[in-house]
């Protein structure tokens, strides 16, 4: 194959461990002139995208069956992405290319997807940043979507190396002005067409009409109203132009504390109870001001807490729940488990996989999020309570918890359109600070801030566990809300029992997938979302297996049923013999890998993957291990 130096030895056996192992030695690479000439692969630019710098004769490593191949090509950097233009895509056949990402190719890394760049100098791996004095022989790029790229620059001209490396570092690390983000040049270069009917399109929640539609859909319009008091962001920049508040609430109240201390409607349950969120009032020391705040809040509470007709329960998410820092720390540890440089590393970490997972605490955080959402669901569904989520700015954990609750309770949110609308409503319009949380502008002082908040939402779809945490009384709430409400917060034992009963009873009944849906939250049930996290790791691929195997059977059957349906229809209408079979999407599922269609990377051979690292010490069982299976009778020897 063109430009491919095939090199053996997946290197599981090497004892000393340099930070980078070179699998391709120069003499093993075909330097036949003809072969080195790259096949011209054209760079696909989006409207408004510009080529910034490039380097040729770059070798990209492709891992296959614990060997690595090198593929020659051109490495380019545009104002949108880093792209490798090589020949290795040609191996894919129709089955696979059918599910190709049309914007971002297999060898494209968008600039904002770059997580960490490493250079390899004399077999040593170092993080690259800022101005470089010396340029590396190899470039390793870890992406935020967990891909890992290895580029060898040894055969590239020196000036080109300098240009591409410093170009990539600059464009992925230097602080950026908002107006320089690629999407603006892209948007000016393309036409924007807007969607219409909320039934078939994502609801954007940027008009009063959208909110009214949502109120109507959830039958929340009895008690809640959409307001335009923040039109033009007169009151507050954090809040959307239009939002929903309790009907009795006066619009002046919204202005009083710039939108703070106002219960903002998220969603209404079929029984009339509502999910609301509120950003906390500024913290004050002064007794007088506190008194004013208290009486303001007392008035506000009357709009949602009117026993015996309506009762509200407050969930303080900034005090009693996860901290954003915790989530960020856990995710940084967790993602590291999937950014794997080579086969050796994969098998070395395999033996202690479970404890590594546990020490990241990520799955535990997922569980706690799910548990909180189930607790809230219980209050709304079984106890008919309004729930008020309270957080400093009501734009982080509020987004997370309220969307989880809606996914569990509202089947509409489990449709594609419904889910997109939910993200738009709770996260985009809910004022989640994506720019800061993802640090899109790379302000180093802000150090990547808790950016993975939206991930628990996407992960939680799989399955779940339990972990009790005490709900302690928060003094602030006590001060602000008065005794009556803090009483409700206090009764944690009772809540715990209610939760258990609700959870157990739901799980003991057959599941209605179009109704309330509660995840499992027991230890063994919360697992790594393999399709996302393992998708780029060749060692983790099950050739011809995984869930895709059953899914493709299901799709085949659906096609068959549909074509039968059409045949019957045609019989009825024209009584002629039906047409040919419709084209089949996923034939030959034996060839698909378990990661299909999320990763295009394919193992082309059917050789098994063998663990290269061995056994971990048994510890206290060593003496057992030494025993004979059976008493060997030496008599007959």
């Amino acid at each position, binding site marked *: 194959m063109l430009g491919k130096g095939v090199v053996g030895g997946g290197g599981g056996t090497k004892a000393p461990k340099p930070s980078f192992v070179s699998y391709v030695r120069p003499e093993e690479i075909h330097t036949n002139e003809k072969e080195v000439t790259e096949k011209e692969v054209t760079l696909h630019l989006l409207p408004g995208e510009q080529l910034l710098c490039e380097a040729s004769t770059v070798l990209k490593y492709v891992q296959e069956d614990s060997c690595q191949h090198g593929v020659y090509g051109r490495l380019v950097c545009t104002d949108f992405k880093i792209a490798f233009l090589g020949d290795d895509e040609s191996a894919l056949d129709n089955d696979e290319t059918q599910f190709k990402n049309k914007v971002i190719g297999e060898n494209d890394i968008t600039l904002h997807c770059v997580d960490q760049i490493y250079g390899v100098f004399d077999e040593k791996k170092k993080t690259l940043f800022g101005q470089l004095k010396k340029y590396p022989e190899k470039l390793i790029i870890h992406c935020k979507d967990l891909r890992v790229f290895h580029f060898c620059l040894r055969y590239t001209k020196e000036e080109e190396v300098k240009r591409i490396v410093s170009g990539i570092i600059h464009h992925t690390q230097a602080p950026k002005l908002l107006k320089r983000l690629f999407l603006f040049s892209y948007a000016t270069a393309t036409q924007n067409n807007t969607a219409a009917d909320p039934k078939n399109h994502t609801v954007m929640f940027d008009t009063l009409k959208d909110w009214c539609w949502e109120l109507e859909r959830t039958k929340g319009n009895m008690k809640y109203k959409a307001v335009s008091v923040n039109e033009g962001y007169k009151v507050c920049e954090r809040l959307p132009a239009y939002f929903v508040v309790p009907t009795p609430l006066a619009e002046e109240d919204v202005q009083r504390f710039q939108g703070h201390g106002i219960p903002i409607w998220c969603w209404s349950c079929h029984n009339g109870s509502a999910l609301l969120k509120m950003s906390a009032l500024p913290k004050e020391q002064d007794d007088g001001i506190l008194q004013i705040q208290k009486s303001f809040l007392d008035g506000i509470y009357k709009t949602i807490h009117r026993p015996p007709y309506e009762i509200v329960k407050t969930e303080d998410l900034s005090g009693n729940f996860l901290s954003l820092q915790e989530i960020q720390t856990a995710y940084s540890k967790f993602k590291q488990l999937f950014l794997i440089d080579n086969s050796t590393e994969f098998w070395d970490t395999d033996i202690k996989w479970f404890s590594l997972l546990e020490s990241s605490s990520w799955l535990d955080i997922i569980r706690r999020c799910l548990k909180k959402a189930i607790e809230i669901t219980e209050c709304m569904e079984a106890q008919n309570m309004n729930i008020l989520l309270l957080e400093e700015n009501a734009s982080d954990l509020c987004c997370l918890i309220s969307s989880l609750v809606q996914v569990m309770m509202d089947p509409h949110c489990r449709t594609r359109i419904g889910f997109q609308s939910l993200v738009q409503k709770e996260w985009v319009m809910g004022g989640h600070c994506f720019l800061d949380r993802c640090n899109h502008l790379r302000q180093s002082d802000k150090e990547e801030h808790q950016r993975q908040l939206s991930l628990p939402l996407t992960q939680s779809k799989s399955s779940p566990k339990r972990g009790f945490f005490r709900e302690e009384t928060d003094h602030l709430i006590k001060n602000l809300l008065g005794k009556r409400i803090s009483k409700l917060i206090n009764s944690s034992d009772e809540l715990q029992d209610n939760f258990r009963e609700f959870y157990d009873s739901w799980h003991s009944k057959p599941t209605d997938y179009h109704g309330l849906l509660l995840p499992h939250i027991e230890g063994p049930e919360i697992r790594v979302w393999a399709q996302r996290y393992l998708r780029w790791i060749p060692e983790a691929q099950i050739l011809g297996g995984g869930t895709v195997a059953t899914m493709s059977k299901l799709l085949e*059957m659906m096609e068959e049923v549909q074509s039968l349906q059409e045949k019957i229809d045609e019989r009825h209408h024209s009584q002629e013999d039906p047409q040919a079979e419709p084209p089949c999407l996923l034939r030959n599922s034996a060839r698909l890998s378990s990661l299909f269609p999320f990763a295009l990377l394919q193992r082309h051979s059917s050789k098994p993957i063998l663990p290269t690292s061995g*056994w971990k010490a048994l510890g206290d069982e060593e003496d057992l291990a030494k025993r004979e299976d059976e008493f060997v009778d030496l008599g007959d020897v």
Partner: protein
Amino acid sequence: MASSSTSKYNSHSLENESIKRTSRDGVTRDLSEAIPRLPGETLITDKEVIYICPFNGPIKGRVYITNYRLYLRSLEMDMRNLRFALKQEGHSRRDMFEILTRYAFPLAHSLPLFAFLNEEKFNVDGWTVYNPVEEYRRQGLPNHHWRITFINKCYELCDTYPALLVVPYRASDDDLRRVATFRSRNRIPVLSWIHPENKTVIVRCSQPLVGMSGKRNKDDEKYLDIIRETNRQISKLTIYDARPSVNAVANKATGGGYESDDVYHNAELFFLDIHNIHVMRESLKKVKDIVYPNVEESHWLSSLESTHWLEHIKLVLTGAIQVADKVSSGKSSVLVHCSDGWDRTAQLTSLAMLMLDSFYRSIEGFEILVQKEWISFGHKFSSRIGHGDKNHTDADRSPIFLQFIDCVWQMSKQFPTAFEFNERFLIIILDHLYSCRFGTFLFNCESARERQQVTERTVSLWSLINSNKEKFKNPFYTKEINRVLYPVASMRHLELWVNYYIRWNPRIKQQQPNPVEQRYMELLALRDEYIKRLEELQLANSTKLSEPPTSPSSPSQMMPHVQTHF
């Protein structure tokens, strides 16, 4: 799960049902109606008790002891402890206890196992499933290089081997006898499986009796060379010793050992680092500790890791993958042994065969595989399980077969369309591994079974399964001939088998049936209905060509219904 009449499968309904029933029975006097009984099952005693349920607290009820089961639950070892409180009424507590131990451990009280009393009748005879001659014929044996020998007809050569063996054509029966003297318990290398195309083979045996002095046996050396030469392309025979190398070395002290390459020039030896039966037993005990009665919550993953159970599974699978790969690639024939060749060896050969030969992935194929590699080749079921024996601390016990079934389950998880059978099939095998309702897993070897006339006096588990096959079928099964399955033996993919190990815990309830399977079944039904309707339409069209169709539910009416499915 002794009392599982197989129709009631779901653990929870079972648990609850039995509880409900027994509490009702506290009032009713007539007992014969109260408990389900198998033909041949007789009630010994019954008593009112309080069942101390670890999940739901104390429950008043009645316990029945029959010669098969304790109703209100269980015989031996499936992750449950049953604790009962009995009211003090004279000596009745002691009586109950004595009766229970008598019937739970019949062998210790010179009573027969229930399998010999069971009078169940099935319309299929499971004992006919495995016929060694037929199975070898299916593999294309005998051929030019391999012959069937009856040297062990009366179990004289090796009392733990089957009567019928497949050996190299060029090795005479006398050769075999001489080799037997050099192999632990006379378990000589014999063929398990032959590759239909490249003719490389999997051969199984026990360790050579090398001993401390490094004894040699020319006949054994020559015999292995003959095995290698059955395939001309091969320069070296690959030997997989399942043990960790330190254990293999240590076994020399008790007369065992391994084939060293300075003596066996044309062989290459690899150790697979799989631990012994004692390590496996302790590992499973630890699994039980973290799942019963409460699932370890706060540190589930690290506790799971500390049991090492999945690590052992990983090593067993890794070993089997290597065996399968060697044979499938045609690089070499493979000889597998451990110490005696009836535990780890059976795991490795049967798993490798499952990977290589799609026949074994069907229901009957799998039954044949178990019957062949485990039952006929003398996996010591009786000692490993301790059927009817009260000595529960016996060092001979070990969950080796369970571990094998767990490996199969892991494979079926990774390849959900490759197996004809479903999870229920694997669970029912394990349930009856312990239940003693069937003769299938009784005794240690074929010769003992023959002496006890097991096939005449007991019912086979395969009778129960094969007379009701539909229940054990995987709807996604796609028959693929000649496809080698290599599971990924990484902790990233191995899972604790929750539906088996934690099925009694009402908190841990898997979605049953799984939604994708449910949807698939719905579509299957829909397809069948459409095909029927299409046939009807065709029929109607051919009879009344001109008339419009007047079927009660027209397809346009069907459409919206179907759409909700998609």
